[in-house]
């Protein structure tokens, strides 16, 4: 239907995927462990940071954004920035109410 498959495709090895999977498992372990430590206002920040790194690994490697054309990365960033703006604007209500 289109010439989409004519492009070069990056193929990662199984070993590489296993390493990413182990990294994700480690980060999950971290999230759970950290929840037992009282870090006051940094608790949420830490959990969100770890979750962001995990999502980043999935998107970059499992979803192949790292090896794809830059336009897909740009599209992804557009949606992420849009969601960030949603959150910031919503907090213009919650932060001052």
């Amino acid at each position, binding site marked *: *239907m*289109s010439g989409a498959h004519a492009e070069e495709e990056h193929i990662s090895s199984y070993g590489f995927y296993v390493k990413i999977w182990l990294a994700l498992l480690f980060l999950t372990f971290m999230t759970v462990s950290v929840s037992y430590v009282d870090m006051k206002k940094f608790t949420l920040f830490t959990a969100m940071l770890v979750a962001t790194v995990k999502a980043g690994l999935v998107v970059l490697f499992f979803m192949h954004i790292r090896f794809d054309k830059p336009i897909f990365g740009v599209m992804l960033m557009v949606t992420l920035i*849009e969601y960030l703006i*949603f959150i910031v*604007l919503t907090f*213009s*209500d919650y*932060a*001052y*109410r």
Partner: protein
Amino acid sequence: MSEAAVDKPKVNYYNAKSGIMSWLTTTDHKRLGIMYLYSLGVFFAFAVFMAFLLRLELFTPEIDVLTFGGAQAGDLYNRILTLHGIVMVFLFIVPGLPAVFGNFCLPIMIGAEDVFFPRINLLSWYCYVLGGLFAIFSIALGGPDTGWTFYVPYSTTTGHNVYVPVLAAFIVGWSSILTGLNFVTTVHRLRNKNMSWFKMPLFVWSLYATGWVQIIATPVIGILLLLVMMEKVFGIPVFDPRIGGDPVLFEHIFWIYSHPAVYIMILPAMGVVSEIIATFSRKTIFGYHFIAYSSIAIAAIGSLVWAHHMFTSGMANEARVIFSFLTFFVAVPSAVKVFNWIATMYKGSIRLSPPMVYTMMFILIFSIGGFTGLHLGALSVDIHLHDTAFVVAHFHYVMFGSAGIIFFAAMHYWFPKMSGKLYNEVVAHIAGVLFFIGFNATYFPLFIAGYLGMPRRYASYLPEYEFYHKFSTIGSWVMIFSMLLMFGNLIYAARKGKKSSDNPWGGATLEWHTSSPPPTLNFDKLPDDIPGSYDYPLEVVK
């Protein structure tokens, strides 16, 4: 491509296959467009009937029409009002133009044979119909009475069934996401090699921008539904303040989707306007780049103004000021479009064929709808006008008077292409003028009544508003009559109309370079050199 390119093909997408299964399993974007048209028509007729009942009830100040079946005073009115809103918003006006005309025209306009994911396109139609059936099914359960916005805490405490219609909206949302995804991908991957981004017709640009809004905003309403379920089923505090939730959060999430949904409705309509005005003025569209970019700007800015629906909901003052300020920005790209359309007509060779007449009505109605939107966007004025009939008039001017009338204009514009037939233009003109009169008679009095304090969503009212409501109800009868005339004319033409030429309006975009109706794969032979979307030949088209 067929080798019989010289002769006009007798086989077209409509008669290439026959039998009900050929339609129910089709992946042809044109057939799916027609299937959407029929199913939308059924839901639209249903919602118009609901509106007819509502206006009939409002003819007098007392509740005296919707009292059958032993219903409590006003209860039946609330339920009919809710169904009218749900069906009109989720099943007609949001999917309307992209599903019908986007499906039919987009691939042809960019010189493609189909959309990028034809099977997903069919799945999208099934999601739409399934969601629609759920909405209708909710009537059997008594019907919801929350209004189409499902605000908590009322929606979680009302005795009427809310989950089925919410589920309906959820399923239709899938249809919307899949269609948006399909269109964005199609524009990126299947554009003809000779069609650069800035050679694309503006309708395609608007569908592209709409596709992005569908993809980004629609999942939010799905998330909202899941949150409601999590609270209801698992007791996780999200919206209920008794267990630590916040009802205003519901409104935030709801409008994060539902305000961009307004732009899902209006952006494709604006694209159609650009096509029709250029064709019937026989002039290159004025400010092509600005119109294209303004579609993207409306999509982007329109996503950031949702909380202007919530100025009286108890939000922080800072947020109210920010959202009021942002709201005014949407007026800029909207005005860019209106000025460019007017400038296109200037010194053009204007023909007042039905699609053009409908489009000119749109410009007037949209301007009134847009300007009254600025009244409502102004924080101080909104405190007075919030939840009054003024708001009802405003959004009907934008949704029905603008997006709706352009749906009718698009039907008249692409009818010869879709059916290969011509309709009676005199009847179409009469229907259009009657619609314009009926529409304004129905909704303009509500601006005044609302300004004077008539609240929305009430089945009974004080006698001082009776004149406005009577005027409005009589207007609604004129409007319904005009629509019956309009659809009757088109249905008659589809069966017994004269045969249309391939390009009856003298359009320049690619769909006018193929036969009417088009062959299954859209073109027997694509023009060697793809013409500019608005390059009109000098000879006069009869």
